[in-house]
């Protein structure tokens, strides 16, 4: 159980993240209502030990799970959104951004970093659903593009964890073009023969599914994640019927040929290490 120990160390080292898992607090599974201590929940990679439900987590947690000893160098940390369209609906976009930043402590909906994963030097990007639904605006596209540049310059594999409702409407066509931008950048990574591993997590929909998330040399998903292009509500309205059970889940996508495999979060790191070994990039 070496992964377990490592994770426990990861939990106890970074002091600023300690407040998330105060001792004596309980986690109640959203799926089976099983109650476990928050500490146990964290130690199980935020997966229910009874039913295996994968709780939604963000970049802080994924980096902790994947990077050796939770050590990494964040790339382009301070790249943040402009408001190119001076967008305003019921709220100003700048106000939405400000309140999201305050609420989450994040700068935007993706963080990118480089470090070691079981000794492999890698670049990892991870989306944060808490930040305006993990929506892809200019910052998400730009940070992914720069992370790919960094991967190429330093000959490191690129791993991207998707978790997004899709486009960021408040950036309209700028948001749309991030799909083309990130996909175009991935052609350069492919040309450099560096692996791109796409990890799809709950939820991955819209423009993210229709661009980088589906373009992995291998596409992996966590169990039970919602993955699709159109959201289930839209599909339901289109066909005017209830959706079949399990529609647009990871298992559904695997069955239809769009995923290489599904991996449980507790096995994610060791699995990635095996894959990286196969790709022979060390």
């Amino acid at each position, binding site marked *: 159980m070496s992964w377990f120990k490592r994770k426990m160390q990861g939990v106890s080292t970074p002091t600023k993240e300690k407040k998330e898992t105060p001792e004596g607090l309980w986690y109640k599974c959203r799926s089976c209502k099983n109650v476990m201590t928050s500490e146990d929940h964290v130690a199980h990679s935020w997966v229910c030990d009874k039913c295996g439900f994968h709780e939604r987590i963000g970049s802080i947690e994924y980096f902790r799970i994947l990077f050796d000893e939770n050590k990494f160098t964040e790339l*382009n940390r*301070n*790249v*943040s*959104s*402009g408001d*190119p*369209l001076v*967008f*305003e*609906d*019921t709220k100003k976009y700048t106000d939405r951004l400000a309140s999201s930043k305050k609420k989450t402590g994040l700068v935007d909906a993706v963080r990118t970093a480089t470090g070691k994963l079981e000794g492999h030097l890698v670049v990892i990007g991870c989306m944060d659903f808490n930040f305006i639904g993990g929506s892809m*605006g*200019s*910052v998400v*596209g*730009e940070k992914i*593009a720069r992370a790919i540049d960094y991967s190429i310059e330093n000959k490191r594999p690129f791993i991207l964890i998707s978790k997004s409702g899709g*486009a960021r*409407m408040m*950036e*309209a*066509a*700028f948001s*749309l*073009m*991030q*799909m*083309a*931008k990130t*996909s*175009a*950048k*991935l*052609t*350069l990574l492919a040309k450099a023969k560096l692996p791109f591993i796409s990890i799809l997590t709950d939820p991955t929909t*819209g*423009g993210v*599914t*229709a*661009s*980088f*998330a*589906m*373009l992995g040399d291998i596409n992996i998903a966590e169990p039970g994640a919602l993955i*699709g*292009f*159109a959201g289930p509500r*839209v*599909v339901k309205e*289109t*066909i005017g019927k209830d*959706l*079949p059970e399990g*529609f*647009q889940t990871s298992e*559904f996508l695997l069955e*239809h*040929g*769009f995923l290489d495999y599904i991996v449980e979060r507790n096995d994610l790191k060791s699995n990635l290490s095996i894959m990286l070994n196969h790709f022979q990039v060390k």
Partner: protein
Amino acid sequence: MATFLDFESPIADLNEQLEKALEIKAKGKVDVSEMIKDIEEKISETQKEIYSNLNPWQRVQVSRHPERPYTMSYLKNMTTDFVELHGDRNVNDDKAMIGGFAKIDGHSIMFIGQQKGENTKMRQYRNFGMANPEGYRKALRLMKLAEKFNKPIVTLIDTPGAYPGLEAEERGQGEAIARNLFEMAQLKVPVICIVIGEGASGGALGIGVGDRILMLENSWYSVISPENCSAILWRNWEHKEQAASALKLTAENMLENKLIDGIIKEPVGGAHSNREEMFENVKKAILSNLKELISMDAEKRIEERIEKFSKMGVVED
């Protein structure tokens, strides 16, 4: 009978007067030729006035005008030797996405575009221009075919979106579009993409990565339609006009934001009011852009294409 949009009601009124005058003329008892000339002049003036001042929502309406020329009309009227090619070689032939070789001024070009139907029956048949994954895969097959024989590609974009159906999801709508973005970015032949009507979201972008992205003057291009944007952000359908403005979806806005490379002028009154002129304008735009692109080295062209898309977006460092 011409179809008039709500903001065209002054033109519709004048048109009614014109029709009455023509009836009188047909009876041959009264000379109304002066009157007819007057009305015709007024129509043209009014049209010019209205069309020089269209707001974004009105342009969206023009882009969806039932008489607006669709992809097939361009192919039939702007090119010669068009041979339609069918099927994705896998599942079926998507009727919402058409393509094939055609000639303009001696150049063989691969044309690909969404196709909307021109009447109720055909609209169903064409699935309202909403392609399934097979459509995007057919498009890619044709692009690869063009690349193999070193022929340039022109895509004509006109879609309210990729089809959000159950089978579309089963067969990987997201993957199909993503694959096209990836492959189009590195096609070795010149690629010109023209939004001729509606450019809605990933469904439009799925055939929209190229060396030149052009928009017709009254087309629109964005991540979502104004109606759906209104529904999501305002939680009702009433704010579509406001949404159309906020989305900055017009050709002019898109050019200002450096998200497209050029605008193709429409005749006064929109593409449908003078189709021949529209076909001619599009043909000229294709030829002039093609001339520039053909003379470039393929690697250089790909590099510039990727560079162009890489620059899109506004961030603060």
